[in-house]
């Protein structure tokens, strides 16, 4: 177990380094001089040179990278060009909003999807199976931002059950904050149920075919226990991996949903910074998102031996 932990941890270091190189390179590739962008078009050349030296931009590129990496290691992602705030606290604040929605939605979706997928597989090719897989495929095909708009139209504008635009932090008014969160969470849950149900169904079908399921039945194990004890844990393993991928990608990538519901999340911060050409923030967001992805998948992998004892030794 400890060996597995060490191996898996060691594997993330090169990935994180490569991610850093990718982001660093990307920002250097953006046309235009960052100093020019920061100071505006009619900047004083002396002032520009001073800023360049201050940012280390007069150094050779590999040195710049090392310098940047060093600051990165201490959590210093630089300062925003638009409001001169440090980037990392800005990101963390916005991340709270995105993470709340994503964690709740994916958690809900996973619970529903695993059960629905298991039942569909158990009753494979029945009308119930057809309904579940059909529903999942339908949900998978609906773009999240459109579903969000439709829900806003229905519950916000027509029925007026829920607030339409805006956001209140939990710290200020918990109830209000929850009301603002309902629709984004429902939207995201619906979309993710589609993906996860299909996976859970396919995995359950694979497992139901295996001899040990028949073996359990041949022992006289009642059907609910066959499903709960023998099928579910084994079918959950591949679904768990997918949950990790989904979680990792959504945590930085729900910009569209945040746009629909005008929530101050991480995705919205990235998009706004792109419009504002606020490159330190863009760079920070990209880096943070990729790092989150790597870390989430690390956690998912570390939990894997809980479902599959074979992994710990392999």
């Amino acid at each position, binding site marked *: 177990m400890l060996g597995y932990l060490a191996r898996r941890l060691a594997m993330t270091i090169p990935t994180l380094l490569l991610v850093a190189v990718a982001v660093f390179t990307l920002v250097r590739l953006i046309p235009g001089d960052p100093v020019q962008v920061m100071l505006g078009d009619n900047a004083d050349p002396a002032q520009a040179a001073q800023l360049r030296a201050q940012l280390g931009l007069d150094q050779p590129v590999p040195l710049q990278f090392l310098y940047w990496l060093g600051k990165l290691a201490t959590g210093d992602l630089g300062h925003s060009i638009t409001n001169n705030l440090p980037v990392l606290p800005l990101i963390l604040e916005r991340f709270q909003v995105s993470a709340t929605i994503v964690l709740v939605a994916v958690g809900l979706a996973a619970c529903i999807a695993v059960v629905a997928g298991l039942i569909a597989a158990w009753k494979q090719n029945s009308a119930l199976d057809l309904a579940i897989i059909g529903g999942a495929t339908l949900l998978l095909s609906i773009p999240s931002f459109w579903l969000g708009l439709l829900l806003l139209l229905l519950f916000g504008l027509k029925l007026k059950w829920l607030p339409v635009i805006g956001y209140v932090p939990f710290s200020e008014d918990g109830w209000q904050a929850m009301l603002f969160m309902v629709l984004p969470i429902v939207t995201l849950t619906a979309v993710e149920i589609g993906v996860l149900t299909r996976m859970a169904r396919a995995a359950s079908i694979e497992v139901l075919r295996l*001899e040990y399921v028949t073996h359990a039945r*041949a022992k006289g194990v009642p059907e609910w226990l066959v499903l709960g004890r023998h099928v579910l844990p084994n079918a959950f393993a591949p679904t768990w991996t997918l949950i990790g991928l989904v979680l990792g990608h959504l945590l930085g990538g729900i910009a569209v949903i945040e746009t629909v519901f005008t929530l101050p999340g991480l995705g919205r911060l990235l998009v706004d910074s792109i419009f504002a050409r606020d490159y330190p923030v863009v760079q920070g967001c990209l880096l943070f998102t990729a790092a989150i992805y790597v870390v989430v998948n690390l956690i998912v992998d570390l939990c894997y031996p809980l479902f599959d004892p074979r992994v710990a030794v392999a």
Partner: protein
Amino acid sequence: MTAPLLTVDQLRIEAARTAAVVVDDVSFAIERGEFLAVVGESGSGKTAAARAILGLLPPGLRRVGGAIRLDGEDLAEIAPRRMRALRGRSVGMVFQEPMVSLNPAISVGAQMAEGLALHERLTRAEIRQRCLDMLARVQIRDPARTFDAYPHEFSGGMRQRIMLASVMLLKPKLLLADEPTTALDTLSQREVLDLMVELARDHGTAVMLITHNLGLVSRYAQRAVVLRQGKLVETGSVRQILSAPREAYTRQLVDALPRRSSASGRRVAGDPLISVRGLKVSFGGRQRLFRRDADVAAVNGVDLEIGAGETVAVVGGSGSGKTTLGRAMLRLIPAAGGEIRFQGRDVIGTRDRAFRLASQLVFQDPYSSLDPRMRVGEIVAEPLRHVPELSSRERDRRVAGMLEEVGLAGFAQRWPHELSGGQRQRIAIARAIVRHPSFVVADEPVSALDMTIQAQVLKLFERLQAQYGFACLFISHDLAAVEQVADRVVVMQAGRIVEQGSRDDVFDRPQHEYTRALLAATPVLDLAGQAAARVSG
């Protein structure tokens, strides 16, 4: 006379979608404590018939008629709840594939305890004790450690014992064993089946052994039922069925058993075609984070000579290194040491092209050895790419001739997936022979095939060898097939040759104890008025 334990009456099973008949009005009975064998090839419906007893047919199949009575109770009519009470408690089942029949996510102990907890009122400590006793009974070395371990930590033979232990723990009246040892090597097969018979005798359990192997039938069963394509062919005592079969199909099955041919006339004359000295093959140990595990020697210092036209058989259990030896001799796997000479030339250092073109391989699994995206004609023609002097007309003629020789004339435009296993193996043989090689490695060429097909393919192989005169390294765990085709026999254990000699010497006067154990584990069929036939497979 008491009523039989189980009677199956006019059982009929169909495929749900196509209504194809899988089991067609089959009737038979099992007495208390009896050992009944149900014999059949693939497609005979033997597995479906057994699963129907417990109401565990796979989703595509359904029982459409007939009665199954256990102790007078019709299993086809009872409520699911009653059926669950009988499963495991009255009727236990052992499965074929030890690798997939235990749940990988649950410890061995928990899986064994599951049945006990369902069917008997026992405390946790009692359950544990019963499991440990049973594990000890099936000769598992460390029962307490096994109880807490997970299935993946055990070999196939050990898992099959665990499975047997978990089923016999409930002392069922009837044990259904569906090809329980087909996936095991000869030695484990013997051990597991002997254990099964002992346990069944101890508990007075009747056994229904589903098998394709007549050797096991003759060694263990009292009565047998022969099935073919869903129909009952013949039923009777094992002695009668094997020595005086009434039906043509049963006779065909018995005749398909490999037999020793009269003393082989082939003798090595002059220099060997291929000679191996001190051959070593090792597989790299697993790469750990900071170090590498020690290399494992799969073949460890093998000396071997094969003469032109001679058939040398390599036998041994799984893990003996016989397959690795074959691959290494064809230079598909790099050798870690030693030398291989072909017609006197060293082929390891020199990447000898002539050797590559003169040697061929026939694989065990005819399903993965043919490229699914090539037509049969293209597959057989492919080796001729490297015979540039052949015009395309000559090439076509050679391919057509080869297909005719293997009995598949006119198959050139077919796809591999349209062929049966036996037909595919014929294509694989045609591909190997078409370039007239002087050396062929045959790696378990018939063990994936049905009995009657095995006999045909072996016969074909022998005929082609007589015709084209290639030397052959025949790798097999099946001593019966080896006895039929080999001139000389090499016995391997743990990467080394422990014995080699002429076929008759090795079979009749084995020197090494491993050879003796292998031979003892292989059942011999005594057939009235015929030479004894050795069976395994």
